[in-house]
């Protein structure tokens, strides 16, 4: 048509596709840099000598000096805090799978009134900011004697990890055809035996992944840990408290100590986390 602007030439499909590729690559690189650069800096500074950390100019490369790490590990209270973190995280893991997996099974296998509402409410537990809940929680914990205990903190962390545990196990159970269970029932199993002999072996890898994810949530959590514990601080809470007043190289070492396990765990279970969000690559 003659009314069209004469400069508006049709472009080859290849051109637009190439442009799209550039946007895609740029976005990917930026996203990766956003995550990876801080982690890289953390590692470099942890593995550099204290003088290098505060000195200038930077080389950007680690000198593999373990002085900061050694100092950090021998720092009084670190070992204890590390132990507390592990205890709380393991408790969280056990509790959230113990409560979450049956809920996930029920969601996937049974029709009951309010099922959709239940699914919403499970996720809703994450809608309340922890600072809002911390004070009443602390008061309540002091009343029942759960304050400053690993179990008390694990309860709070379980609440945080539970939605994920429920949703991951829900998708795991949904991936197991009901006929497998039914076949087991006709072959002489009761419900529990069928679950143990047929469903468990099939979902075990996914269940481990979801447990590890719960572990990581607890491991990384700092606010509740800082508010609800005093003597029995977890590593995060301990570091927040003591590193504020520590030299820079120690902060880096502490940061690394926190990041590394979480990174390893998440990397190990990434496949199942994708599955949970519906981008299954199984």
């Amino acid at each position: 048509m003659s009314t069209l602007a004469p400069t508006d030439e049709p472009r080859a499909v290849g051109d637009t596709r190439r442009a799209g590729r550039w946007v895609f690559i740029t976005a990917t690189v930026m996203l990766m840099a956003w995550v990876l650069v801080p982690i890289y800096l953390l590692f470099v500074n942890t593995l550099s000598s204290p003088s290098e950390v505060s000195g200038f100019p930077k080389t950007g490369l680690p000198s593999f000096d373990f002085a900061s790490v050694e100092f950090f590990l021998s720092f009084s209270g670190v070992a204890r805090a590390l132990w507390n973190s592990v205890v709380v995280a393991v408790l969280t893991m056990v509790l959230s799978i113990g409560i979450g997996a049956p809920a996930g099974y029920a969601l996937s296998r049974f029709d009951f009134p309010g099922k959709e509402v239940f699914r919403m409410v499970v996720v809703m537990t994450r809608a309340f900011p922890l600072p809002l809940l911390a004070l009443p929680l602390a008061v309540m914990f002091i009343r029942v004697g759960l304050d400053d205990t690993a179990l008390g903190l694990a309860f709070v962390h379980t609440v945080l990890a539970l939605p994920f545990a429920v949703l991951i196990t829900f998708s795991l159970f949904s991936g197991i055809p009901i006929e497998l269970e039914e076949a087991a029932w006709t072959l002489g199993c009761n419900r529990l035996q069928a679950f143990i002999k047929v469903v468990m072996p099939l979902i075990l890898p996914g269940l481990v992944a979801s447990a590890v994810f719960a572990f990581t949530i607890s491991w990384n959590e700092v606010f509740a840990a800082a508010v609800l514990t005093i003597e029995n601080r977890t590593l995060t809470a301990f570091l927040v408290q003591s590193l504020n007043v520590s030299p820079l190289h120690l902060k880096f070492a502490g940061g690394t100590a926190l990041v590394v396990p979480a990174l390893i765990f998440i990397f190990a279970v990434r496949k199942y986390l994708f599955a949970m969000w519906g981008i299954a690559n199984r």
Partner: protein
Amino acid sequence: MAEIIIKQVAKSFGTFQALHSIDMTIRDREFMVLLGASGCGKTTLLRIIAGLETPSQGEVWIGGRRVDHLPPRERGIAMVFQNYAVFPHLTVFENIAFGLRMKKLPQQEIDKRVNRTAELMHIEQLLKRYSGQLSGGQRQRVAVARALAMEPDVILMDEPLSNLDALLRLEMRAELKGVLAESKSTAIYVTHDQVEAMSLADRISVMNGGKIVQNASPVEIYRDPAARFVGSFIGNPPMNFIKANRQDIGRWRVAGLDLYGPSHGASSLEFAIRPEDLTIGEGGFIATARVVEPLGAHTLVTCEVDGKPFRAVLDSDLKVAPGDVLTLIPKPDRIRWFDPETLLAV
């Protein structure tokens, strides 16, 4: 002895009535096929017998024992599922042995039974494999072997062949028939495939809309359908139906022909004839050929009689072209009549 008696079994899902008061007796060692279109309730009935579904009312008896309150494992049944349900984390051997281990049989007996059923189903070379390494047909064999190894009183099959390709289905069908005839089990087999039903069954129960429409031997179902639905559902091509008007007592006018029929009081009935029960000759229906499909042994001719489609299976020697006018004579002893009100045979 594993006679199955079903007494007034009904099932509703919410407001949907899946089964309307079913009564049925399946004799010991009989091969019963439940046949019907999808959604007719045949699978629901099978699952109620298996104990995977609870009836809303009614009783199920197996071998003289009331079982409708018992879990599947206490009913003496084994089931073959449509999607095979072979356990993916166990080898073929362990799949077949699964139920035997639950029964806590001695290892020697387990070995014996697994090997025997595996041999019977021709899968003895697959015993160490996992289900992921098997083809659909092989999985089906494992599923059947697993059920047979239980030596159940009753073996229940839910469309076991429907996921196989046509050739394999034919082969498995014949094999199933042989294997089950040898076993001492009473068999109930659900299918929507009428050929499968005809070829396997001692008796067929045709189901429609949650009711049993007819329960008889395959030949009887084919020759003497008890209801219009059975005539139109069984047979490929299905029965032809033409409206018949009463002329006199026992005389009916059907598309221009005067025929002797039942002395029925209604003013109109439906005349029915199977396509293969028609011959070419003088004084029959005037039919205009529309589509001619040579099938080798026979030629299927879709004609028009009285403005309605009408199919005839004719000898393939006969030369028919679209547009030809044929006169088709129904074999008198093969004519059936249906009441258009009740849709039942007269």
